[in-house]
């Protein structure tokens, strides 16, 4: 099993790799648990470590490329949605 001793600040780390690790740990742990009934110790559930914090951080620490990608995508999605709505409204009046 991969380390569960992830300190909080590591989960909040801004690098993509770290985060992927965190989420794989989630799923692996679940399998382990059902397999051999880990004791009810605090560390048995991957969420235990994370539950205590709501890891907001300074905006500058987010990876720039991710922000740019998500922002552009949000703009594209909103505009596309407006476009479709406009078509549906026009379609109500024109055949």
């Amino acid at each position, binding site marked *: 099993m991969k380390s569960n001793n992830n300190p909080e600040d590591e989960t909040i780390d801004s690098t*993509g790799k770290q*985060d992927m690790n965190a989420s794989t740990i989630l799923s692996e742990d679940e399998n382990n*648990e059902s397999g051999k009934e880990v004791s009810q110790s605090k560390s048995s559930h991957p969420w235990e470590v994370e539950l205590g914090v709501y890891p907001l951080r300074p905006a500058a*620490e987010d990876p720039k490329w*991710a922000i740019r990608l998500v922002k552009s995508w949000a703009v594209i999605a909103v505009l596309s949605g407006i476009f*479709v709505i406009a078509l*549906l409204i026009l379609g109500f009046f024109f*055949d």
Partner: protein
Amino acid sequence: MNPKHIEFPVLGAKWFIGFTALSHTAVASLAIGFAFIVTIAQIIGYLDKDRSYDLLAKRIQLFHVCIYNIGTIVAIGLVFGLSGLYPQFWSQLFVHQFWTLILEEFLFFLLATTLTFHYFFWDHLWGHKKLHIFLGALLTPLFLLQFYLINGIGGFMLTPGFQEGQASLSQGILGWDKQAFYNPSFLMLTLHRTFANISYGGFVVAGLCGAMLFRPNSGAIKACYEKGGHLSFAVAFIALLSLPIVGYFYSYVLKYEANEAFVNLMWGKGDVIAGGIDWWWIKHLCVAGMLGMTLTYFWHEDTADSRFSMPLVMIVTIGLFYLIFYMSMGMIMTWKFFWIMLAFALIGGLLARHLVSFHKGSPRALYVLVGIISFLTVMLGGYVREASRPRFVNRIAHYDKIYTPAERAPYLMVDVDPRTIPPPPEAIEKPSLAVQLIRQKCIGCHTLERVRNYRLDNWELIVDQMRAYGLKLATTEAEIIITHLREKQPY
């Protein structure tokens, strides 16, 4: 020409389509509910700075990503099936609503991408949490739009419209037909499916949280799943409450616009009965049971720590309201319906109490049970809707005037004996206003035969009488109808 068609082994064409369509419904219907609950949970988590909601939201979104994949694959299977097994029906529908379906595809692309970004950038955006929540919140309206488009086609299959919808069918429409799209049952189908999907998604999330509560976890983790269960159960319950009401108006539309479907549902005819069982009744047993269970749950819900609880006054009011609702259903259908639904609601209520007290106040078993029942309800609802509507092969005469390229025509065959196909109507021109009015207004309570058989000439009196029976008619409309009838013109 002798019509040949592909035989699907064992299941047969109809049940293959039914099977793939229902499998698609089972997973795809979860999408809107999941997207909605993820957003709500993320917002509450953000406002409370409570990580449990956010962790749950992320887990649900992971399920959502998986389900989106499976749902898509099954939908492709359905499209393959329709293209091969009902080639004429399918290619005509595609020609008819080509642009609608292309837009649909475009929206699916937007959805799949937005969903993927939302899940995989979760931990990249802790410094831009609002942006992340916004990205997730985009999913719900996009899903609704996508849904809106497919409902135009689904509604059309149920209510092609009186003369207008069908007339437009025979004018070789290429790609977009506004009257067919904005058909009579479009609005009600959309409302019903929207609330049903939110309710279904919510109950399934609560059911999953309930299942997790059976596992040996620490108190903190349990509290986390309890919060998730409370939240999604409450969201699902609110959506559930709207459903019988929307359904009531939906059936009202069917009564006038798809009478055959209405009769099949209300009085158990046609494919609504399969294997000697009336599946519409079974669906309603599920609904009544869920109403009983959820109302009892909110009644006994420990209000001390839950913000998703409800005052007793409200529960009693809702209970009374639904009692009246089922009475009116009893008046439309049979009183047996009323009594059986009442009995199931009571049994549901008692069962809910028992389950909660058996698990020492934990609603986990109830969550799981309601999750399963909501799944059954959605399946049965989808089944009876498609089973109740008139078969499309009966409408073939109206369909075969849709444009099809000549070289493709020989390949467009359906499972029907060409000799049984009624001749297509001659070039349909739009009937006069008077004829339209008579055809629309005078068939609500009896057929036009009743009007044609009437030999006397006092039409003014007759029309007034019909208005007294409940016919809604403007005075000008009445005059137009009376003049037309008095002149003994055809209609």
